[in-house]
């Protein structure tokens, strides 16, 4: 067999290995806080006979208000019912950011799910009592993708600095990457914002079973409002920021994260 024929097989195998390797690593879920402001024209220009005026309306965004939008969206509630079997988001729910879950939103135009699609990193609405609703995924009842939100880090443009003790394996790392924050309640409100994010890692010493206590802090400002919509009005988001922190045990192969991530994702890009 010619080598050129082997190349596609090798590529498929590399991608499969990459996904498999990701699946074997479990990152702690980052309890995420989201805040920002959005400006838009809530009303048409008004003319008093002498002057015509139009004003901007500015509103705030918080974790609580975004969850309120989801709660008040019939589209979201329908999906929620299909996916979780419940028709309401419990009070006190919050967002977590899941580096472990890279949901692929399959493009139906490419036929079989899994062949092609957009990979997005999961934003999950959850609470302390076991409720969990991933904001992007596949609704098997409706037999369709749904996409109410995600928080992506750039798959390729991820750079970092780190310091690691050769003996203990402990150390720290600071990564820079491009990020995209997407939110859509399916009810006339959408945020699609970009920025440069910082991921700060603190790794403890490596234990005998090759794991190390790891703290991950994310500071993801998304100041660049790109395709924002508020109540069906064109809008511009400002100062949107997603931030949070989590601690858990992670297999030591992940440190430094930016190199591990790139080794995995460069094949899938």
């Amino acid at each position, binding site marked *: 067999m010619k080598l050129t024929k082997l190349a596609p097989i090798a590529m498929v195998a590399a991608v499969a290995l990459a996904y498999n390797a990701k699946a074997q690593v479990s990152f702690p879920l980052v*309890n995420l*806080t989201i*805040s920002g*402001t*959005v400006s838009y*024209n*809530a*009303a048409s220009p008004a003319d008093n006979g002498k002057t015509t005026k139009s004003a901007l309306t*500015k*509103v*705030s*965004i*918080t*974790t*609580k*208000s*975004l969850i*309120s*939008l989801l709660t*008040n969206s019939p589209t979201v509630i329908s999906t929620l019912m299909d996916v979780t079997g419940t028709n309401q988001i419990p*009070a*006190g*729910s*919050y967002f977590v950011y899941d580096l472990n879950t890279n949901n692929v939103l399959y493009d139906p135009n490419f036929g079989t799910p899994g062949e092609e699609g957009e990979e997005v990193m999961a934003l999950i609405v959850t609470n*302390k009592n076991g409720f969990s609703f991933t904001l992007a995924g596949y609704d098997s009842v409706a037999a369709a993708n749904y996409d109410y939100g995600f928080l992506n880090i750039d798959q390729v443009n991820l750079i970092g600095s780190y310091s690691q003790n050769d003996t203990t394996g402990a150390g720290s790392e600071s990564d820079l990457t491009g990020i995209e924050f997407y939110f*859509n309640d399916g*009810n*006339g*409100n*959408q945020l699609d914002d970009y920025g440069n994010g910082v991921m700060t890692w603190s790794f403890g010493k490596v234990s005998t079973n090759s794991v190390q206590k790891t703290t991950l802090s994310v500071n993801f400002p998304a100041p660049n409002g790109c395709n924002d*919509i*508020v*109540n*069906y*009005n*064109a809008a511009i988001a400002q100062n949107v920021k997603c*931030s949070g*922190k989590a*601690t858990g045990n992670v297999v030591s192969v992940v440190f430094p994260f930016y190199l591990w991530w790139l080794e995995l994702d460069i094949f899938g890009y």
Partner: protein
Amino acid sequence: MRPKFVFAMLLLALLVLGAAFIFKQHWGNAAAPPSINESVTSAPVVSAAPPSAPVPVPAVPVSTNVLTPEQRQTAIDAETDRLQQWSMNDDPASLSNILADLTNPEKEIRDAAIEAAKQFGSTDAIPTLKAVAANTTDTEEQIALLEAANFLSLPPVDFRQPTPPKTQQ
């Protein structure tokens, strides 16, 4: 010795003994050493009355002098976790707890408290945020406190009566 004098002396002695007993009890309690396990800062839960004008409550300091750096960080993380939970509630007690942490000795907790106040989303927090800002020497923190106060003065993005669409999704 006259009986009246002896009686007076006995009465005086009883009074002195009684006073000594009371003083011993009071000072004995006050001098009890604090527990070294007590580390954080769980801000006090105050009354459930509506916080119409919350007053800054001095936060209980993290006793950093008896904690290792790891223990200190654990205590800070625990308090910031609590702040995040309080921020998702809607009750006055949670708001009071958040506002109490605006004056916590740990900067990381104060920063988390500012964010929690924003997330809680009550205009009742504005006077306290401004009052704490007026008493803060850290310029960056002052700005953050005032920005949080301004943020809370905005209405939240929460719509129940849609207007005619102007753009296509």
